[in-house]
């Protein structure tokens, strides 16, 4: 029986995230993809297909059919598909490789949110859920509602509640700390707990400005090959051992589960099964910290901490932060690029930055950010979300084929 091809990353590239006032989206994706191509050592004409992602480009930049401008840019006439998140583009690309349709494809994501600075929150909210938008909801509101549901459900009170609030602030502080070493990050400045708490006081809520990821411009790209041809390009391939996705209702209030994301829980079970590994094998996590709450609940949804307990581990790990969370004796490196909070969150490109980070870390090429695990650094997992937990994508990357 023929062995199924394994989708293999042979090169990655990205731009700096942040505000790129002077640049067209074309420049951004071009930069990301040329870097990825260079790292992979491929020629433009080697590509058989392109899988791209963006949420709002037709709205923010009025560029028409994205595939058309990408064709013009690359002078390629290969099949191209656009989807929303980078992870969805990547999953489609993996499916195609596994189905032996293609052997070498480009996956790219881009977003230019700051060009529509004054309207982007309305767009985000409308995408998240029209009925919540009609009722007056904002992109930030559901995070706070989820947090309040969480506190109620697990009966977190008094001193524990204060610790939870500190733990959430520590997440932001920790992600800014990681971003200091990330040359591509949007925010490369340290923040303190005081910054986070001041912003919360200003907002008169549990979550303030520093609890949320920014809006950003940026692009990311990677070259995906079948494992068979990957070895002719690199001797340090990174394999995508599993990918999985799940979907939940668009309207957050109408979901049964409102202290976490069902989609994440389902996606992670499937991806572990597909990759054939268990949680204890995973040392690296890139998770979707659109807010500090999302980083906390994702640790639970992904199964690394029991429900209602993640904040305790975050709190104790961050009292004297050593570069990782310690959860039940296990070291977990989380959001080494600074996460969405500090690295930035250009929607369609965000997932690409997560994969970029895991790729670099697994290859030992993360420079200043390179972490040292106990034993070999073998597996990383990326969680990307669309909407407010409406869709979850999990990818498990590994240095070796199992």
């Amino acid at each position, binding site marked *: 029986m023929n062995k199924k091809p394994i989708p293999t990353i042979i090169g990655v590239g990205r731009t700096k995230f942040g505000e790129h006032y002077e640049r067209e989206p074309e420049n951004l994706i071009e930069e990301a993809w040329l870097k990825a191509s260079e790292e992979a050592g491929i020629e433009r004409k080697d590509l058989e297909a392109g899988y791209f992602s963006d949420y709002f480009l037709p709205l923010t930049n009025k560029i028409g059919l994205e595939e058309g401008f990408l064709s013009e840019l690359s002078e390629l006439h290969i099949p191209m598909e656009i989807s929303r998140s980078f992870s969805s583009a990547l999953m489609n690309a993996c499916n195609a490789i596994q189905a032996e349709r293609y052997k070498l494809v480009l996956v790219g994501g881009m977003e230019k949110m700051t060009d529509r600075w*004054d*309207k982007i*929150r*309305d767009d985000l*909210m409308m995408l998240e*859920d*029209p*009925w*919540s*938008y*009609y*009722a*007056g*909801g*904002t992109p*930030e*509101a559901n995070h*706070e*509602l989820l947090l*309040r*549901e969480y506190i*109620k459900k697990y009966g977190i009170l008094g001193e524990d509640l204060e610790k939870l609030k500190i733990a959430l602030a520590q997440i932001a502080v920790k992600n800014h700390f990681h971003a200091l070493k990330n040359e591509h990050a949007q925010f490369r400045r340290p923040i303190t707990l005081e910054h986070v708490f001041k912003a919360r006081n200003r*907002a*008169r*809520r549990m979550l303030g400005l520093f609890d949320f990821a920014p809006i950003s411009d940026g692009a990311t790209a990677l070259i995906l090959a079948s494992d068979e041809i990957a070895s002719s390009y690199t001797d340090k391939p990174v394999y995508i051992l599993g990918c999985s996705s799940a979907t939940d209702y668009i*309207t*957050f*209030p*109408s979901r049964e589960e*409102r202290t976490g994301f069902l989609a994440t829980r389902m996606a992670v079970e499937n991806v572990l099964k597909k990759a054939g590994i268990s949680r204890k094998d995973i040392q690296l996590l890139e998770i979707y910290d659109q807010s500090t709450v999302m980083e906390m609940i994702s640790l639970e949804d992904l199964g690394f901490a029991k429900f209602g307990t993640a904040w305790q581990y975050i709190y104790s790990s961050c009292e004297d932060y050593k570069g990782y969370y310690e959860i039940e004796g296990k070291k977990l490196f989380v959001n080494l690029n600074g996460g969405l909070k500090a690295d930035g969150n250009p929607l369609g490109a965000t997932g690409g930055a997560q994969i970029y980070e895991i790729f670099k870390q697994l290859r030992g090429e993360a420079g200043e950010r390179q972490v040292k695990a106990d034993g070999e650094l073998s597996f990383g997992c990326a969680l990307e979300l669309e909407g407010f937990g409406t869709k979850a994508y999990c990818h498990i990357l590994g240095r070796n084929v199992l």
Partner: protein
Amino acid sequence: MSSEPIERRVAYIGDRLRGSRCTLCGKEYFRVRDYCGRCGRKSFGKMQEIDLFYEKGELEVCTLINEPTNKFKKLGSFIYGIVSFHNGKIRVPGRLTDLIINENDEIDFASLEGREVVPRFRRRYAVKRSEIIPTISLAFTFADEYYPHQEYSKMNPNKDYDTPGIVGYGVYISRFRIKEPHMERSVPFIDEDSITAAVEAGKLALIHSGVDNARIGKVYVGTESNPYAVKPIASKVAQVLKLGEEDRADGIQGVDAVDTEFACKAATSMFKDAASIVYYPKSEIEYAMVIGTDNSQAAPRGEPGGELDFFVGYGACAFIFGMKDVIAEIEGWYSVTSDTPDFWRRDQEPYPRHGGRFTGDPAYFKHIRKAAQKLMDKLKLKPEDINYFVSHQPNINFPTKVAKELGFKEEQYLPGLKVAKFGNTYSGASPTGLAAVLDQAKPHERILVASYGSGAGSDAYSFITTNQILEKRNRQKFTIEYQAENPFLYYVDYTTYRKFKSGLEAT
């Protein structure tokens, strides 16, 4: 730019908070559905339509929104959260309305969570003045504050009358007020207008009368402050209150709905039409609803027409006419009209103008005196035969003076004189006075009402209360007295009043 079909669909669901229940598994949905997601194909035809319009919910969790999305910016800061109905079978997003949150207010969310809330029909968000006005009922207020939760229990009528009359009524005055030297005036919250008040009043009238909404065959809405120059308020009232026979497949109501305009008598003028239409057997209309609603306009003080800015109010009144379970029969009427331009607003002008001192003698007094006197003559009545006299009330002096001129004493005209509490609610003004009297009248008492509409004319009616007025009284908590003297009234300053008055129009 708004999209008409999207607007229609969102309002159709959101104005009434329509939902569905699967009769197989019991799951409930916010939104109209043909199938249950859980039961699939076998649930087709087994979905029951429900709505949350007369229900109360619970605010489960909430947060503060102080940086709203663009269309909500005019609302300022507000509370937003999750509201559950039917013990959590349905959960919807919602914002709290009728609540002013100041910049430095500390909010204790825990004290808000877990409290009962009532859905309120309001403007959804700001749009440009050229666009369709979006509305929604995903706006809530606390059930234990100003606006109480009231069930709508339909009654089978048990008594027929020979004469048509009022079978129920409802008055809606907003929670917000402004104090003037000699009176208080009602002020709309920023998401209210004459459309939302009309729907509220109609809802309250249905609750009070117990009349089945499907048996109302005609609805008239009288107003001079419709935010649309072209597009009736009555169609919104008919759709939201589901008046007349409902054709669910097409989303159409089997009812005749029309707006009328004649300054402050736009509603009272239609009392006789409503009475006639229910009396005429071939109309096959059992009940007709007349609503007077106004977000009375006034130029800012100091500008031409700004004199009105000391008197205008906000609110609506709804009366249901029929020939079954009548609480006040119509004994007779008399109307007068002359072409007297004492108050007017030209097309595309935001504020009305008036004829100053000429609004008195040759306008208000002449017409009311004539209509009331003619009716009393026609019915051979003397002032002492009449228990209550109610007239149009643009201020305190005019109605007092005209009542005295006609020979009425304080005990006859004071019960129906409410302008000092609510301001001039224009189309709703004399009807509010009538409602105040009906709130307290005993059976077999006579009420004389004389409205006034600039332009000019007056409608005088004589009503005689029946025994049934008492049995229906306990069906309404939201009485005139309740709205006039309420611990939850909120007084605003002039600047806030002007801001609220200008409403949710995008600038």
